[in-house]
């Protein structure tokens, strides 16, 4: 039977969404909607264009759609090249990068690019490729090789210095290595040390933050950041100001929030970077704990869905890549909310799909596209 033209058009329209994961798509749309509405309030009285934000969101979804069309096999094949390009660019940065605000992070290649951003995707790609390659013949020294693959760019980024990004790239790589089967007996001692270290800092915060105490291996400004976190009032007009003011914004929001466009902290300019890194404070002030629970539920659903997609992925490469990408989303969300609510030190990490910023949105769209692609090609690629 001949299809009616209307159904044809319908088919064509929905055709472009064919194979996309509907659940993931809806969650992302939900997040994007939250982001857009928060942006409208946060950007009031600032010169940032609403049209820009809308375009970036669309761009992010277009990127997602495009990447979802790419078979994972192609990603696997290009992993080494992307990684190699990334490392080459990082070396180029170290050699003749631009210096801004005391850090050498940028490269002027007609347009100014920040190669460490590429590493956020290139690192899990490369490591997933490596473990795929070694599948079945994996030896313990494979973790040594993986560690080297991980260490080179992390070292280069940390030297810029850009400790925040270095840590995120390191985390992305570690997710792949741990998921690839790093023995627990190697992991647990580090987890234990970490927990003890955090507890020590919390308990002895007052003592070790005394002015004349010098920390080994750590820059003064890094010590300052951690100490400000422990006691934001120690520097109320400097670094502590951001944390104190965003905590006030969140706390004063209460359970129901002050209402859309009603946040005094946001609208009277007490929140720094209120439409980018600190956008969560604006959302929190205006929509309260209720809004936060909805937002956290959306993020949690996003991660659950991402992990579920990875768990049902056809080969090791896609499983590791999908899970790593999902956990990067998680890391972003956790670190951002933790930092805005005064739980973690202030590092420049955006809130996925909520924070304004073209680069971040496109990168995130790329990541979501990978998940979509893995889902879409779950039966086509068999190892």
């Amino acid at each position, binding site marked *: 039977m001949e299809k009616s033209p209307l159904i044809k058009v319908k088919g064509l329209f929905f055709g472009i969404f064919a194979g996309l994961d509907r659940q993931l798509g809806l969650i992302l749309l939900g997040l994007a909607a939250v982001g857009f509405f928060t942006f409208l309030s946060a950007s009031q009285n600032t010169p940032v264009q609403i049209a820009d934000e809308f375009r970036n969101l669309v761009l992010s979804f277009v990127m997602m759609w495009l990447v979802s069309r790419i078979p994972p096999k192609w990603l696997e094949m290009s992993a080494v090249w992307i990684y190699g390009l990334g490392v080459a660019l990082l070396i180029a940065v170290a050699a003749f990068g631009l210096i801004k605000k005391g850090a050498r992070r940028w490269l002027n290649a007609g347009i100014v690019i920040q190669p460490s951003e590429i590493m956020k995707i290139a690192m899990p790609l490369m490591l997933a490729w490596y473990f795929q390659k070694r599948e079945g013949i994996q030896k313990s020294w494979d973790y040594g090789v993986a560690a080297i693959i991980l260490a080179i760019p992390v070292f280069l980024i940390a030297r810029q210095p850009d400790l925040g990004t270095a840590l995120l790239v390191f985390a992305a790589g570690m997710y792949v290595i741990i998921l690839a089967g790093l023995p627990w007996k190697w992991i647990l001692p580090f987890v234990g040390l970490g927990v003890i270290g955090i507890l020590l800092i919390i308990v002895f915060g007052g003592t070790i933050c005394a002015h004349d105490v010098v920390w080994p291996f750590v820059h003064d400004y890094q010590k300052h950041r951690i100490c400000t976190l422990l006691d934001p009032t120690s520097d109320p007009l400097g670094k502590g100001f951001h944390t104190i003011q965003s905590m006030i914004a969140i706390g004063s929001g209460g359970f129901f929030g002050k209402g859309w466009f009603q946040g*005094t*902290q946001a609208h009277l300019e007490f929140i720094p970077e209120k439409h980018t890194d600190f956008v969560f404070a604006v959302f929190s002030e205006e929509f309260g704990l209720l809004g*936060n629970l909805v937002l956290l539920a959306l993020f949690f659903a996003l991660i659950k869905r991402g992990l579920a997609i990875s768990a049902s992925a056809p080969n090791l490469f896609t499983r590791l890549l999908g899970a790593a990408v999902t956990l990067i989303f998680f890391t972003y969300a956790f670190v951002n909310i933790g930092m805005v609510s005064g*739980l973690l030190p202030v590092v420049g990490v955006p809130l996925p799909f909520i924070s304004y910023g073209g680069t971040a949105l496109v990168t995130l769209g790329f990541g979501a596209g990978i998940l979509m692609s893995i889902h879409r090609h779950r039966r086509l690629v068999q190892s």
Partner: protein
Amino acid sequence: MVSFKKPDLDSFQERIHIATLFVTFCFFLLITRLVWLQLVSHGKYALLAESNRFALVPAPANRGLLIDRNGIVIGRNYSALTLDVNAEEVKGNVDQLINDLSEIIDISPRDRRNFKRSLEDSRNMGTFPLRSMLNETETARFMANRYRFPGVEIRARNFREYPYNELASHLIGYIGRVSQKDKERMQAEIEGAKADDPDALQASFLPGIQYVGKIGLEQSYETVLRGVPGYDQVEITAGGKPVRTLSSSPSVPGKNVVLSVDIKLQYLVEQLYGNFRGAFVAIDPETGDVLAFVSKPNFNPNDFVEGIDSVTWKELNDSPQKPLYNRPLKGIYPPGSTYKPFMALAALENKKRTPSQTISDPGYFDFGNHTFRDDKKGGHGIVDMQKSIVESCDTYYYMLARDMGVNMIADFMKPLGFGQITGIDLQGEARGVLPSTEWKKNTFKKPEQQKWYEGETISLGIGQGYNAFTILQLAHAMANVANNGIVMKPHLVKAIEDPFTRNRVLTTPKESYRIDLNADNIEVIKKAMLEVNNSGTSAAAFKGTGYQVGGKTGTAQVFSLNSKEYKHGATAEFLRDHALYIAFAPVEKPTIVIAMVVENAGFGAQYAAPIARKALDFYIEGKWPKEIPEWKRAP
């Protein structure tokens, strides 16, 4: 090399489960944190957000006027355009900013110094005037260049102004910017104030108080003059920019203070003193109204309002003339012969002398192995009480003092106000010294110093020795005698005026107390003092007055000359004698008494009495001396 189990799907899924658990744990942490912030601590943060949001912008109250007894305003406010700089915006770059500004607006080194000092005092908060009284050209030039100077603006401000400059500076005093000490004091006042005290600062907004009276009437009537500052509750941004006004509490202007001082008389006396140093107090004996309160030299209180600059301050402070010294209030002088009428009255009241009782004066008086000299060689001959006053016979009073003894003198002089705080409405009054055996015992430490020697009594009779009084006390005592023993507290302010209704509330107290004096005895003294001006020491100065005036001259030694002869011209200026004079007029019913000193001038009759004569001519008959420029009302 250890080989591991091939990572199959099961082990991967196990790790995914663990990752999910980890993620759940982290989300749990976040939710706990958010519950802590948004539920448990919501109250605290809501409060912080509110206090973030609001600022109280002070609205200073208009300060009350200072008005003389005839309605002449001697302390007022004017509004002028001021170049205001926001301290926050210029941090660390003050000199550059001022240099740039001085290209278009005249900024004196003094302006620069004052501004920088305000900045330091304020710890870089608030807005401060850099230049006041901008003229039209300057205003226009700044407005054209305004874009170059963020944080700088032109504003209308109220300034305190003393239109007659130096005139009456010691009694007016001045206001200055509130210091940290002032703030602490006012805070304590607010906390300690009673709810029903109308002068209390209860409702006032401390940050709105930017100026306080530092000395003089500005200080002693501070709470009346100041009013109650108000404030606007303003919503502000993090940068401190006001967004809108939410509520406002209007300021209540201060009340006007009406002086009992006749400022024209004050002006005349200050002119008459010329370059002489000294003190002059005139009191209306019937009311206690202080009519003139002169301290020469004086200073310009306008210099202090916006903070005096260090150069001017040093000049005033280091000057040997001591222009900042409030002489009538704080300067203590031996009264010299002006003490004699009081001694005579004491003798009559204590029945140690009758008016007609006489002594024979050989020109000196021997006591023990010491000779007390009279200023007239060969002596005054036979001297009765009136002659002793008219000719100022020292021997008469040496003997009188000996006969009375130090304590009888002290007991009589004390209620008259000698060596006592008069309670005038200025702070920092000196007590002086009214010697008595008890005073000596309390004052000195060693037993041999504490003993009173009878020889010390003798010179008390002529107003020397330990006697040390303020000119205010001398005037007060004269007023008490002129008023027949009815003591009125001297005061510079007689009423408080409501700035809107112009209703006046008298503040003058009723009589303090009465001294039981015999009217006949007072008559004897007044008559003798009248004779002083008719035929006595100051007769020349009072020739041809149209009214009857009693007086007494005095010359006080600045230091003991050890029986060497005193030669006025040959003595260094600061060691020369002080010329004193007291007077009351008209004799029948006195409306004015005067006490005065002209420092290091010499004889009282020569230097002090003529000033008193001209002051009385003006006050009683309205005659203005030709050599003194006409009084002109300030524009």
